[in-house]
């Protein structure tokens, strides 16, 4: 017997005069292998034509569709209703700017994060189109790729206790990005530069270690490993900083 699912969905349109945040309830017949991508489209196309949410790839790759599903931040496209109870509560991710209903502005936050961290290869080398590529050990390439797999969905930041208190906190996504460039031999930033970038309470020392990020990351990024790597690097960064201090 097919279930009738009840969706309780957060609604608020900031461009609409006098609109107040509220919960709207919808019912939907469950079909085999129904996921929230299809379910939300069915609700929009038949019941609520102004319902706002974000999907792009609908394959768990692009990171657009993170939302709070029964209180937990995760990707809607790959959430099957079969794994959920009859009543499904959907809220937008906290922390990010709300654009409307379930849609939040992760794009601008991640763009700013990339700027703050200077999320690019720092090098003085010019590209030479006639030269062979610089060699890299395959194990190093794989290690970089492990962190590079972040899809900027924002689940880790939405789940982070520190981020809710300190809006400037870089979050697991930011720290992971730093790790990605620290692993990369093409990036010439030294310990001192890394130290100044992350050894603050909005950086690696702001993390209070509850690791909700690690629980919710849909890509299973090795966040624990990356954080401890950064912390250890920062330790040697401290030594450099102390050595350079004028102690006379």
């Amino acid at each position, binding site marked *: 017997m097919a279930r009738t699912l009840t969706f309780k969905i957060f609604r608020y349109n900031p461009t*609409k005069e006098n609109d107040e945040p509220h919960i709207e309830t919808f019912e939907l017949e469950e079909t085999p292998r129904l*996921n929230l991508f299809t379910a939300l489209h069915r609700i929009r196309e038949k019941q609520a034509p102004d319902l706002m949410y974000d999907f792009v790839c609908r394959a768990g790759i692009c990171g657009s569709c993170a939302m709070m599903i029964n209180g937990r931040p995760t990707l809607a496209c790959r959430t099957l209703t079969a794994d959920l109870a009859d009543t499904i509560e959907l809220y937008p991710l906290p922390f990010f700017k709300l654009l409307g209903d379930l849609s939040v502005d992760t794009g601008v936050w991640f763009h700013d994060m990339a700027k703050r961290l200077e*999320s690019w290869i720092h090098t003085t080398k010019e590209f030479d189109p006639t030269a062979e*590529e610089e060699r890299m050990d395959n194990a190093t390439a794989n290690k970089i790729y492990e962190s590079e797999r972040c899809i900027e969905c924002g689940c880790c930041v939405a789940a982070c206790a520190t981020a809710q208190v300190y809006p400037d906190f870089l979050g697991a996504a930011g720290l992971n990005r730093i790790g990605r460039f620290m692993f990369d031999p093409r990036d010439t930033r030294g310990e001192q530069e890394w130290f100044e970038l992350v050894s603050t309470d909005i950086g690696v020392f702001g993390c209070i270690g509850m690791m909700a990020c690690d629980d919710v990351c849909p890509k299973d990024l090795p966040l624990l490993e990356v954080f401890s790597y950064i912390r250890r690097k920062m330790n040697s960064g401290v030594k450099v900083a102390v050595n350079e201090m004028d102690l006379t």
Partner: protein
Amino acid sequence: MKVLTTDVLIIGAGLAGERAAIASAQAGLDVTMLSLVPPRRSHSAAAQGGMQASLGNSVKGKGDNPTVHWLDTVKGSDWGADQEVARIFADNAPIAMREMAHFGVPWNRVEGGPRDVYIKGKKTTIVEDDANEGLITARDFGGTAKWRTCYTADGTGHTVLYAMDNLAVQLDITIHDRMEALSLIHEDGVCIGAIVRSLRDGELVAYISKATAIATGGYGRLYGESTNAIINEGTGSWLALQTGLVPLGNMEAVQFHPTGIVPTDILVTEGCRGDGGLLLDVDEYRFMPEYEPEKQELASRDVVSRRMKQHILKGKGVQSSYGEHLWLDLRHLGEKHLTTKLREVYDICMFFIGVNPIKELIPVRPTQHYSMGGIRVNKDGHAYGMKGLFALGEVACWDMHGFNRLGGNSLAETVVAGMVVGNKIADYAKTAELNANVSLAEKFCKEQTDLIQHLLTNSGTEDVYALRDEMADLLKDHVHIFRTGEGLEKAVTGLKGILGRLKNVRVKAQAPGMNPELSQALRIEGMAKQAYIIAKGALLRTESRGAHTREDYPARDDKNWLNRTLASWKIGADEPEFNYEPVGQLDLPPGDRGYGGGQMIDMDLSLEEYNAKVDAEQNALGKHATSEPIGVKLPKEAWREESPYKDAK
């Protein structure tokens, strides 16, 4: 109406758009990128398998070079490609891969020494050259003589897009995301920008620019069942078509990828078969070697998709509540391979269909995947019929893919065209004047305001989503892998009916802001007109070439159809106009592809006679003069030296 000005306006911030934006920024120009979504969410991110470039670092790529890559590409296209453009592509692909390494892509690298791989269903040991340790490696892909596809596990598009966007951030290129271009601003055949709607608050903005480039990807979503992201609704090609001046090329050339998973139509990469995956039928029998003894599972995509469909029609498909399918078997590749090099595939199977590919077979069937057709441009990427307008990437018909593109060639095209066309856009913008014609912009803006008003207030009863689904069903039922005159007539008639009902589309959602239903309604005319062009173009093309397979015209007809379809739609006209131009300068004479079988009707002109008419006929259809004469990048008959091709693999 808000007005913004910029030197270069790039519509679409996936890989092609971003690489072109970077070219202009590096030339010192002011660049603005528009995107429906944050750039890193573009569909480029979903490309898994890799990019073809003849670096030849892997032992199985030994002896590779741009000429061999070019040969594979032209044969893959079933001779529909512009051979000079294919050459520009093949020559620049190795440079583009190395440049992306410089920008930060963690390409998988050669590890010297022996390793076990699967080739044609057999476990084989290959020994990588120690001297190449640490260089960019490659995997096998369909329709290629060499292992040539550079990759980062099965997240290639993701890593390249992230590296590219990092550079865009570093160069401080302006990005306005959640913005949708609705029309181009143009006068006397010159484009000066676009009218754009904000998907945050619904505001209309005029962007005025010296040069405008469209890089919005394909039109796969017209088919409904597609591997494409849901934003790939042909919005960019519609911008060009609605001017009435710019033709779309080869819209009937639509690629079906052999391995969309069932249900959900999500792609699993060709790298699955490249790395040794096998296709099995209902009896778990490996059928491809019977049809394609030479290439087996790794013939070109059009051929493998056709063979799969053919095998299903023989009664060898697997029945399911989602229709018939076949199996993809990756079990023998083992857990380590599937959780590292094919990790996205593993995740997709586990999360979306509950199949563990380490132990179970994956249900697959051919699914709409790629748009070979698009905005027709010359070799510089300059749109036919409109000055100051460029197009690149999947939205363009540049045309290196002809009637079938090879796997790994489109992702590579994005960065190569981004470099090559990107530089031409910058060159153009450097000499162009900014024509800040605000009253012209207001005229185009008013058209959109009126259309929005009409959609929100008319008394019609057509539902935009129902109309979209009807359109998709017509394409799916009649303009799919196998096509017949009878089926195509039905599609054309049905789509004509839909075109007549467009004016009755009424948007129910009246809320201000982004209004998703209004967004869809603003796209539906472009979608329906392009669907019509696909179906009508397929009906008119009475031959089979590449992915365009006519059961009633099974031969490739080089005598009558060695040409490119150009469709344009004059403003106010009931019907599109179809013209045909030569494919371009021929160097490799039409011949057998080496896979796929099929009959051929030979051309009755010599190569010289054919080539002599190319330029004039293309010019007559709107081609702009190119920065150098056409044909100069084609080293005539260099392919004759490439004997390795004959005994490759």
